[in-house]
């Protein structure tokens, strides 16, 4: 069995353009050049502690160092060799291109600028898991600190930084949690493509994102991010040097999402197999594409908000400073014009994964493909019109609260369609309770709770009370973690055999499922109660009257923590020595299950031709 797994199916000679510079470059050279660039930039702009402008100079020097680190790393890993060679009229040879695709390089290619979409998918998967692990560790520290009233475990400064770092780490991880690994690895195969439309941009999107990770981590050594993930001004302008790490992370990350979004949409539009008309595209592809397409217009406002934060901090421009005619409301608008669409950028792929899973595990067609499309499109369309529900109580224009309440509550109609599609698919079927399918049931519950509590929050009089409380925190964890993350984990269980050639360990998987899901309910039930009782969010210390609800929350959090450790173990263990997976363990009909493991460099020996959608399950089909 293992022999089959390890047999390499190479028919052509392994490319080895040994004279070319690209063979010399890898993550190591990237790190070296990046660090040199960072120090050079810091030195060029080094602050002078004796001057009055020290604060501004320091921000300038740190921001320059962080951004130049990113550019230097990309130069050092060879990201720009292709365009440069093209510019001087000496495009890469065919052999060099094959080398860039990582052909025959084994594990080494994961540490290189590799254009194979499957390599990029694995890089994203490992990166996302690392970020979730770090973010989860911070969550455990937060909840430990909140186990008892009074905030004795960690100080206010560290606590505030923990909340900010946890928030932004998780948000970044969640934006890429599904479209990164599965959008890159699985999606091109699903649509019958040989690679992404722009393989070099694909590698670029990952490595740009990669450079943001050390930048974000540097915040710990610069005094932390004391503003929460929302980084409201003017607090962010007042904040210490750690804030620069936040600004630089978002600037870098926004470039990565723009590149990735353009690449994914182009791929889906232009690279589909012959015969794959729009109504035959697998639903995961539709959901993932809508998600990244929604991010393309959303992120630039966040970028702008960060540029203005940076200029306020470096040049005292005062965009957000009321003393010179600026306004913190400007920041809040820019932030939430990105922020609300972004929550659906996170949700849509997770739901789309479950819609891909459901037909396979009940052996029925997807119920109403059109309703699914309308649901996704309706949500994406409305989601750009609702941002000010985060600002009901900011006081900027109370008369506009009514209209924003209307648009926000309208989102529940397309959201309802997503429920209908999932329920219609499982209705009258016999669900096969494998791990991916358990995820579907968990998400139905979690998204329901998240949705209903969202309706309370969208109501102005209720939000007058609930805004800024633990209730909001519980609401968005039900949607982000309960729905989107659970959906992504279901996707991991589903596609694990295709991505690793092995089956995910089932007993460990089930144990992890029950620990995380039960722990999750306990954790956030406690938090809903704390919020209803009146406990503000982001507080290091709380009054004794919130004792029990917080204790419950912390208990639940530990269960979730245990669950995720078990899951992590299951993933690592199964990846290394799990049972060898058959080519199509679930009997699914989408194209990724027609290719062997390891998936050949260009996926298909013969280009597939599509004659129907992939949901032809069931009697009489």
């Amino acid at each position, binding site marked *: 069995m293992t022999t089959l797994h390890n047999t390499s199916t190479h028919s052509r000679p392994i490319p080895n353009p040994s004279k070319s510079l690209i063979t010399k470059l890898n993550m190591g050279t990237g790190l070296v050049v990046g660090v040199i660039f960072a120090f050079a930039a810091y030195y060029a702009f080094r602050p002078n502690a004796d001057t009055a402008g020290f604060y501004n100079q320091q921000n300038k020097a740190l921001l320059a160092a962080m951004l130049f680190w990113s550019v230097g790393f990309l130069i050092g890993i060879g990201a720009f060799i292709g365009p440069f060679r093209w510019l001087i009229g000496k495009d890469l040879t065919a052999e060099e291109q094959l080398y860039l695709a990582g052909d025959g390089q084994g594990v080494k290619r994961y540490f290189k600028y590799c254009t194979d979409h499957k390599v990029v998918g694995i890089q994203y998967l490992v990166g996302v898991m690392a970020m979730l692990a770090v973010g989860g560790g911070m969550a455990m520290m937060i909840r430990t600190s909140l186990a008892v009233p009074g*905030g004795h475990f960690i100080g206010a400064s560290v606590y505030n930084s923990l909340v900010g770092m946890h928030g932004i780490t998780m948000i970044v991880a969640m934006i890429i949690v599904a479209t990164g690994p599965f959008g890159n690895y699985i999606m091109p195969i699903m649509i019958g493509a040989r690679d992404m439309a722009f393989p070099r941009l694909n590698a670029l999107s990952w490595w740009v994102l990669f450079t943001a990770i050390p930048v974000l981590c540097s915040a710990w050594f610069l005094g932390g991010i004391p503003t929460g993930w929302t980084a409201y001004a003017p607090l962010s302008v007042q904040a210490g040097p750690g804030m620069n790490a936040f600004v630089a992370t978002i600037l870098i990350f926004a470039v990565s999402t723009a590149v990735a979004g353009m690449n994914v949409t182009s791929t889906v539009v232009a690279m589909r197999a012959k015969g794959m008309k729009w109504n035959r595209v697998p639903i995961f592809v539709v959901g993932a594409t809508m998600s990244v397409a929604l991010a393309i217009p959303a992120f630039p406002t966040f970028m702008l908000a960060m540029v203005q934060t940076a200029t306020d901090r470096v040049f005292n421009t005062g965009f957000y400073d009321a003393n010179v005619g600026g306004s913190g409301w400007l920041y809040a608008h820019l932030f939430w014009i990105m922020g609300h669409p972004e929550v659906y950028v996170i949700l849509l792929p997770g739901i789309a994964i479950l819609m891909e899973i459901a037909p396979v595990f009940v052996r029925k067609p997807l119920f109403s493909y059109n309703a699914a499309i309308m649901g996704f499109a309706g949500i994406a369309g409305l989601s750009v019109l609702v941002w000010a529900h985060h600002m009901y109580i900011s006081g900027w224009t109370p008369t506009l609260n009514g209209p924003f*309440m209307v648009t926000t509550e309208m989102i529940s109609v397309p959201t309802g369609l997503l429920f209908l599609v999932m329920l219609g698919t499982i209705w009258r079927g016999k669900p096969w309770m494998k791990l991916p399918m358990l995820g579907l049931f968990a998400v139905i519950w979690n998204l329901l709770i998240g949705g209903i509590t969202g309706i309370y929050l969208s109501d102005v*009089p209720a939000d007058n009370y609930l805004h800024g409380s633990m209730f909001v925190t519980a609401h968005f964890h039900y949607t982000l973690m309960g729905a989107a993350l659970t959906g992504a984990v279901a996707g991991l269980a589903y596609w694990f055999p295709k991505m690793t050639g092995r089956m995910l360990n089932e007993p460990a998987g089930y144990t992890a499922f029950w620990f995380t899901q039960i722990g999750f309910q306990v954790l956030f039930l406690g938090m809903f109660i704390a919020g209803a009782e009146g406990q503000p969010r982001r507080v290091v210390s709380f009054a004794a009257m919130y004792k029990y609800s917080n204790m419950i929350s912390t208990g639940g959090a530990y269960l979730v923590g245990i669950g995720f450790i078990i899951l992590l173990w299951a993933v690592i263990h199964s990846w290394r020595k799990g049972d060898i997976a058959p080519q199509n363990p679930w009997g699914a009909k989408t194209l990724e299950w027609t290719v062997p493991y390891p998936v050949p460099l260009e996926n298909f020996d013969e280009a597939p031709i599509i004659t129907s959608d992939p949901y032809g399950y069931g009697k009489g089909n």
Partner: protein
Amino acid sequence: MSNHDEELTPTPGQRAINLFRRTDVQRALLFTILWTAVFVILGLYFYPKWMPEVMSVDMKSMERIMIGFTIISAPIAGLVLGIATQAITNRHKGDTPPPDGPAVRTNGPIVAVWTVVSGIFCLIAIVWGIVEVNTMANAATTEAGTAVHVQVIGSQWVWSFKYPDQGVESDKLMLPINRPVVFDVISEDVNHSFWPVQLGVKVDANRLQTTVIHTVPTKLGNIDVKCAELCGLYHAYMETSGKVMTTDDFNNWITTNGGHVA
């Protein structure tokens, strides 16, 4: 024989009867009712239990909405969870895929009814919300004349209160019962959010930009005043207390603090 004919061309009435004879439909219905009951109980019993005492008109309207929205959404939640629970009771065990289900690709009427019904529920929520918002806005204008004015000043990390008409300053929020109150809120530094918890209102405090909220305290008792916007290091400790008192007690408090009754 006649039975056989019916199956070929059942009338709508017979189709409905047949539908309810199916055990999966009956089971789904039963679970729907059970889950609906769970949510109704949650709304009626738990929210009032968890939320603090209702001490103002706004808190009353907030509580009405939490209970009302929970009960309105109970049948929907019940149906969703009813169908899901039914599916779980019908699950397939084993290591091979389950037998094929019916190849139903869509059902036009069901999609239409689902959309329209969720639209109606959504409309109820919207209308309810708009009515409440309007009532609050109207009350704010009509009662402004008789109101007590309180200037609320947030600064890192304390609240202070000025009563300009009475000429009193305080670090505790004292209010007379059954008299409208208008809060003019401002910050001396970064954003804060003024939250007198039991009054059920909240508004951000911004630098150089006054924001206004209004309410009517309706019950005697203590108030917790908190900050609901992360405002730096000691945000968690930016709290104080207050009291809703009888008019006489309030006037006494004013005069003992060197103010004059207005």
